Each structure stands twice: as structure tokens, then as C-alpha cells.
């Protein structure tokens, strides 16, 4: 299986877009899970630090200059593919902070426990919402605290909705 066959990237595919260990050890940075040459460039156009290198061709894959990336997360909401995440491996001794894009209702609240989902939508842990950032283009950015060993696994959340029963 591969991202082309079922939408879930393989380990090998992910390796190509994972920031280097030494960068992750140093500071929060972006991880861009975009694998296909498609006519799309908002990520590069919206990074205020030029960390996603300008595209020579609109169909280029995004390339990150991790030196320049501050982990600010501005690019997250610009991406129509919801393919961009920020990882901060130094949140605490045992936890990492992940920023994920989110477009479902209801939004979680700060401090709320939600389900942490892997790339197939399976629940792998209960995680804590550290921050909810609403943006102008309506894609919210949810910062979640996850165990370090799940930082490369968790890529989405599910908010149990007591009112609507889902």
C-alpha cells in the first residue's frame, strides 16, 4: 500500500518528509506531508520566513529549509490539503506538542481531553488540547500534547460531541 493506493503514506514515504532528528531535537518545526506534484503553492506563498522554498514551478513539491522554519504554524491553515503539521519535541520531558489543522464542528476547548487519531483515523491515545487557534480562512489549528513516542503517529483528533451524539 502507499499514499496513491489508499491515502495512507508508507514509512518510506514519510521518511522523505520527516524533519532531521537534529532539527527536531533543537526546535519546533514544520512537517509537510505532501507527496504528489499538483498545481498548488499556498504553503510557499504564505510562509513569512521563506522556510518553504519558493516554487520554480507551481507543481513542485514543497521543500523546507528547516534552518529558517520557526514552527510558527502560519502555513498550516493556508494548505488546502490539510497536509501541514508542526512538531515540538521539547514540550516537556516526555511529551511533544503537535499542531494539526481541523475543520470539524464542534471545536474542542483548551484543556479538553480528545481522541488522538493516527493517519488511518484510529484512536491511539487520549490527548490534551493545549490551544485552539481560529484563523481567518476558517481552518482552525489545534495544539495537542502527546506522548513523545506518538509524535510521528498522531495526526488528527476526534472531539466527542455530547449534544449531537457523535
Amino acid at each position, binding site marked *: 500500500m502507499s*499514499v*496513491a*493506493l*489508499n*491515502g*495512507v*503514506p508508507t514509512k518510506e514515504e514519510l521518511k522523505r518528509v520527516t524533519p532531521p532528528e537534529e532539527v527536531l531535537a533543537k526546535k519546533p518545526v514544520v512537517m509537510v*506531508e*505532501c*507527496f*504528489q*506534484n*499538483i*498545481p*498548488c*503553492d*499556498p504553503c510557499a*506563498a*504564505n510562509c513569512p520566513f521563506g522556510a518553504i522554498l519558493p516554487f520554480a*514551478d*507551481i*507543481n513542485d513539491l514543497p521543500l523546507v529549509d528547516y534552518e529558517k522554519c520557526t514552527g510558527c504554524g502560519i502555513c498550516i491553515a*493556508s*494548505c*488546502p*490539503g*490539510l*497536509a501541514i503539521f508542526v512538531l515540538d519535541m521539547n514540550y516537556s520531558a516526555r511529551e511533544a506538542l503537535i499542531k494539526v489543522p481541523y*475543520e*470539524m*464542528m464542534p471545536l474542542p476547548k483548551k484543556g479538553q481531553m480528545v481522541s488522538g*487519531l*493516527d*493517519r*488511518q*483515523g*484510529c484512536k491511539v491515545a487520549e490527548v490534551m488540547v493545549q490551544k485552539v487557534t481560529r484563523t481567518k*480562512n*476558517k*481552518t482552525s489549528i489545534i495544539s495537542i500534547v502527546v506522548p513523545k513516542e506518538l509524535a510521528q503517529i498522531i*495526526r*488528527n483528533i476526534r472531539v466527542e460531541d455530547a449534544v*449531537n451524539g*457523535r
Partner: protein
Amino acid sequence: MKEYDIIVVGGGPAGLAAATTAAKCNANILLVDDGLQLGGQLIKQTHKFFGSTEQFAGIRGIDIAHNFIDEISHLSNIEILTQSTATGFFEDGVLTILEGYNGNRLSKVKPRRLIIATGASENMLSFINNDLPGVYGAGAVQTLMNVYGVIPGRAVLMVGAGNIGLIVSYQLLQAGIEVKAIVEALPCIGGYWVHASKIRRLGIPIYTRCTLKEVKGKEEVESVTICNIDDKFNFIPGSERELSVDTICLAVGLSPLAELLWQAGCEMAYIPELCGYVAKRDENMKTSLDHIYIAGDVAGIEEASSAMVEGQIAGLNAAASLGLYHEKYRELNLAFHRQLLQLRHNEVSESITRGIKKATL
């Protein structure tokens, strides 16, 4: 009979771009659309668009439509006729239009140039019980949900993993509707992988080499049997699975809505890469008839981004053919053609480029 420099039929991205561009060349324009409001497919698109940032990428379709509508309200030389269907274009140069909700008023108008930007219609699939209530095209599902705020059902099987199938699945999930699975007959996901990944992260399976075999139900859809298929698209016995759903959503492709062009007598060609019969055209979107131009999905199923650029090209050149040259005609025309080339410079667009070559006069 009222006369216009240019009449644009279809108020989607292609028609809107054509009308605004031609208006800036000082042409007087009538824009006709059969919808309740302008925007075509755009008003149903609540997701952020791809494309280049120059061409609205990262903006939601509905907001692109609003930008256009706002721009048009400042252009006094565009008249707008919504809830109106253009029904025929005749030898004497008369375009007939059925106006009003019930189409009960016939009017006749005369354009010096006609730009056809009627978009596309959805394809149907043949299977047992495909006429049961609960079987929808993806476009209908989107209109119900995103324009009228009505959910089509509670549990859905999506047929087709192209961009439309993937995006409409995502929008169904956003509306709180369960999507049981997406089935795709081809061995690969046809839509953008980022869309597929975002649906997978919500826990929805995508089955490739799989299709729907039969829908069951008395008065309405109650369940569906899906089945794997082999290389020759034959069902593989024993691989059937039954899913309990009340809605089947078909996203199995679009065909250019070219009736007006046939009727007007344009030279037509069947081009599989462009998804059906299209009018042959020159590089400035002029058909075999000097007074008729085309733009958007009716010229070949593609994207809103390219539809808008084709609309700009058609609008600019239709006006120029009347002697109404934009002050920056050459620069703009070059820039539009360059943008189209850029948009199509990728693997996904290879077949479109091939098709366009065949369709060029």
C-alpha cells in the same frame, strides 16, 4: 429586440471571468445563468481551492464566487439574468432565453459575440436499482447540503475517488453524516492524495479496485453490496460485502454540457481526454464559428482555476474581435496563456494537454 456586444451563457467561474474581462474592454454584456444565484459550481465549494496563489488558491470556492459578484456589481456594463436558461441560438443570430423560476417567459436577444460557458453535467452509472430514491449525483448532494442546508441522508456510500468524490465525502463528514466507505474501480486514487489522506485520517476507508454491485431497498435505499473487481473490471465472486446505507452518492465523472454548441452548428469532436464531445476551438477559445467562443468545463472537464483563465482569454478575445481592444491586450493575452501552461504543467494534466491538442483547430 435587445442587442449586446457579448452574451455570456453560464455564470460559473469561466463565465464570470469572461464577463468581467470583456466588460473591462468596454463591451456591453449580458450574463445569463439558470441558477438562483451566480457562481456555478463555486457556490457549493466550501473547501479551499488548489491552484496558484495568483489564481485564488487557498481560498474557498464560495468566497471566489463572492469576489466575482462583488466585482460585477461595480461594472455598470454587465447586465445579469439569473434563473434563466438559454435554449437555442439561431441562424439569424438570435438567442432564446426562458426566464423565471418556471421558465414561463420567453425572450429573444441578439449578441454580436456569444461566449458559451455552460459547464458540465454529471455521469450516471448502471446498476441494479439505480432508480431508487437515495441514489444521488455528487453535485446534487453538494447543492442540497452546502446551498440549502439539507442533509441527503444519514449513512452514505461514495462511488468514485476522484477529487469530487473525495471532497464531497469530506463535506458530508463535516455535516455530521456517516460515510461508510469510498469505492473506486481503478487501482489508484484518482483525486489529489492530500484529499485522500485527510479523509483517511477521519477513519473512512477507501477501497480501490472495488465498485458497487447492487443496491437493495423497497421504497428507498436500504443497503448496498460492494464487490472487488479484476483487471478487466469483472466482479470477483465471493468478495461481496454488504453495507447498511440510506444514500448512494455517485461521483463518476462529468461530461461537457455542449447542447447549445451542437445546436448552433459548431464543429464538434469526441475527445476522451476532455470527457466527451467538445467544440473545436483555436488557442483564443474561438470555435469554428467566428462569433462563438467557449470557456471552462464545456470546453473540456478540468478545474475552476483553468476555467477562469480560459474565461479571461475568451472574454478578452471576443471583445477584441469587435474592435474593443483592452489597452494591454497583448500583455494580458500572453500572461493568460502562460498561466494556462503553468497550471497544466503536471502529470495529472498530461491527458488534458493531449486532449486540447486534438481539439485545437
